[in-house]
């Protein structure tokens, strides 16, 4: 690690002020950032720890939506249960140490192309609430490690519309246990959403053809005849693009069956 300053603000206003400094870097649970610092692959002048920000804590039900503070750990989401498919997803992230430190805000701000939360947010049509504005998930994810966030903008909360039924199917990359392919599927009164993580060079994406087919017939067999193009899929030592494309369909079918 290189040397850096640390601030731990107690309010959003303080956090925003702290982030205004030069080379300031927000620190959520640190599950990606700390290893990066240890490898000397980043050298921020200042880390702004968000774990003490009052407005970013807690999970609350707000009508048909579940609002989760940005500093909420995966472990807390896993234990919540108001949105069972989301809790199940959180329970599959990393190991207990990761789940007790890592936060939903940190994960969504980082937007790792193989992370689980982006699939849930996009698959649920969630709203990303920041220090400046509210951003629809469809507008938020902009490619690998890329989001609509501006410099210094902090994810303060995420609001998930609770669906009629939902399921997350994760086929793990065996080393990292991130998703080699993860499919989050949610059924709402106005339609089906299918979001895929781990597979694409563009990061998390929606599989529109499947959403349409499942809207007409909510069964795995509705996917017969559909296929995902392999063109823009990730190819690495864990699997070629064609395999990932194949898994997207398999995992989507399993999600439909499991969601019931």
């Amino acid at each position, binding site marked *: 690690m290189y040397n850096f300053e640390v601030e731990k603000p107690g309010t959003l206003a303080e956090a925003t002020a702290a982030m205004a400094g030069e080379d300031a870097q927000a620190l959520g649970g640190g599950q990606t950032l700390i290893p990066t610092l240890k490898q000397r692959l980043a050298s921020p002048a200042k880390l702004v720890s968000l774990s003490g920000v009052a407005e970013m804590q807690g999970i609350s039900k707000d009508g048909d939506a579940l609002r989760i503070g940005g500093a909420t750990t995966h472990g807390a989401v896993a234990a919540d249960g108001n949105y069972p498919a989301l809790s199940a997803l959180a329970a599959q992230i990393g190991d207990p140490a990761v789940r007790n430190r890592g936060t939903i805000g940190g994960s969504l701000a980082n937007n790792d192309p193989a992370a689980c939360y982006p699939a849930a947010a996009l698959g649920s049509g969630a709203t990303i609430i920041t220090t400046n504005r509210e951003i629809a998930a469809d507008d938020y994810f902009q490619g690998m490690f890329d989001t609509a966030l501006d410099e210094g903008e902090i994810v303060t909360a995420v609001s998930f519309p609770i669906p009629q039924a939902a399921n997350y199917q994760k*086929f793990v990359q065996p080393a990292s246990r991130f998703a080699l392919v993860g499919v989050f599927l949610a059924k709402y009164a106005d339609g089906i959403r299918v979001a895929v993580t781990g597979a694409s060079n563009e990061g998390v994406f929606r599989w529109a053809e499947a959403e349409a087919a499942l809207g007409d017939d909510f069964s795995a067999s509705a996917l017969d005849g559909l296929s995902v193009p392999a063109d823009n899929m990730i190819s690495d030592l864990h699997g070629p693009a064609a395999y990932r494309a194949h898994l997207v369909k398999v995992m989507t079918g399993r999600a439909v069956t499991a969601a019931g």
Partner: protein
Amino acid sequence: MPKDTGIGASPVRREDVRFLTGTGEYTDDIVLAKQTYAVFARSTVAHGTIKSIDTSAAEGMPGVLAVFTGEDFVEVGGNPAGWLINSRNGEPMKEPKRPVLAHGKVRHVGDAYAAVIAETIEQARDAVEAIEADIDELPAVVDMNDALSGSNFVHDEIETNQCFDWGWIEDNRDATDNAIKNAHHVTTLELVNNRLVPNAMEPRASIGSYKASTGEYTLHTTSQNPHLTRLLISAFVLGIPENMLTVIAPDVGGGFGSKIYHYGEEALVLAAAKKLGRPVKWTADRTESFLTDAHGRDHVTKIELALDKEGNFLAFRTDTKANVGAYLSNFSTATPTFLHGTLMAGNYTVPLVYVNVKAVFTNTAPVDAYRGAGRPEATYSLERVIDKAARELRMDPIELRRKNFIKPDQYPYASAAGLEYDAGNYDALMDKMEEVADVAGFEARRKQSEANGLMRGFGVNAYIEACGIAPSNLVGVLGSRVGLYDAATVRVNATGNLSVMVGAHSHGQGHETAFPQVVAEMLGIDPAVIDIVHGDTSKIPFGMGTYGSRSLAVCGSAVVRATEKIINKAKKIAGHMLEASDQDITLENGVFSVAGTDKSVTFGEVALKAYIPHEYPLEDIEPGLEETAFYDPANFTYPSGAYACEVEVDPETGKVRVDRMCAVDDFGNVINPMIVTGQVHGGLAQGIGQALVENTSYDENGQLLSASYMDYTMPRADDMPMFHVDHSQGTPCTHNPLGVKGCGEAGAIGSPPTVVNAVIDALQSGGTNVTHIDMPVTPARVWDAMQNAKSEEA
């Protein structure tokens, strides 16, 4: 009734108290006064010419005490290969120098070309970043075929990338060729034995220190064999007299082979300690472990098996390319040859074996012995091709193996690959395996899997290994440059407790528990009064280390011999005390008695007499009670086993799950069954890891793609089934005093082919004509093989 003490009992491991409570003392835990820190500058390219290294900026950085480059070590020796292999044409192998720090060229990613010593580790890291190295990148030599055919050389001075071209047994070559040409059936298989990164839990670490007043050096280091490290540094690298160098390997957190060898970092910290007059510590980070620990395996093999129409094996012929990486590590030339080719007859009465191995330099990390070392490669090749032959001939894979097994009445048996097996009973192992694995219940389990939409397969395997490494006279003839005996000193203290100094270092094997069981059994005393001392060259007589499943068979035999000497001398002392001839003294339950009388003295009384020799025949018997023995084995030991595995394969994703794993091993006599079971469990986990998940991958530029746990998959608990382990069918080794064979590597040798055989069986039973998938059998590879098989049928 299981015993509760001595040989055959399973007391809990006494060393686990410190391991499980965090009170072990590892090299990095040791803090010496005025200690400084070393950090290495390592190549980021696989192959390059060092044009210049400017260290001036680094030398001016805060806290920096010294900067070393390859120039500083031009005058000292290289780290040698411990085994000379001659090529088929009689030429000795190529031995390019392996310097302390790279000089002239860098040859793999991670190759160290400079080192900074500073007051703190962070200062040393900062200064390493300030070193300006001008390195001209050269094309990397990665693929072994390219290495052999091209003119881009890892070591320019030898003008080839071939280290040797070895034939075994060369005199059998023509006969083997003829047998294969004329056979009723020949089964051929091309396969890869995948490269593995050892991944010991504790990274390598070393502290060099130097006392100017006496000229004495001390090296604390993560070593499986401190005496060998001392010998290599003294005789080959730095020329420090052996009596001026103490090497201490304290608690060591796993080695699996990778900590047998001497590494350049050890020489660097010693040389730097002398220059600075202060201790110098280096501890690898995990990336350095991935890039620079000696890797394992990495063979590419074509094997052919010739059979007659009854299924009798007529000949095995193999053609192997073995990757040795960028430099020869200490045992890298023995592993693919005499620890591999000599095992190519397996458990079978096959009359002819011919093995050709070409060892190849590449711009990758050095490759050397890793748990099993050559024997897993031999077993994998044999047991995969036998399985394929059974399928081609529509024979039951168990019956085909049984048909060719050496039978119990054939021992000692001279194998076609040049070894003399002393004892074994492979049919008894197979019988036991069929019982323990519940082979009879397999079809019912397969139907259940099918009902769940999964393909179930059954795989079997028989193995033999050569352990108890090794008879010095034999290995000397075969090219070894060292002897492979071991040594022990048994010191009985005046108050009757014992210190036993053993050459075999313990880094997880449980020696501190098992060796006292042997001594306690022989003396009839409480094992609690016996303490094991190991890992410090200033305290123990000598030792050739812990590897090759040798500790009990070789060092344990030295312990027995030294204890016998203790008993002989103690009987003389007791005879004097009891006024009887030592010939008439018996020892039972720790009491010396005159046969046929009620006169006796206890072991403790004899010990006290030895150290307070009043009324003592000093003209006949020396005072004291301490004996040393060196033991050199007459032959290898030959553990063997029959393994079974059942897997379920998901036809949609290709994911393989090991559902059942059964290991029936013949380890001869067993000292501590619990420790043996634990050793087998660990070996099975590593073998299943190799078979299914561990994937060391270099790209065409020689960059290690799997250089962290984000991409290198370690087997985890949830990848493992409950293991069914049995060692009830032991046939004692005939030539060592305990009748033991060694158990450390068996699990890693026997399991990979068992798992792959089971996967192929699952795919075949599911109607997919897949005959082979290379390890690791990842979901993507299974799916790909299934797609290819389908398109071939279409």
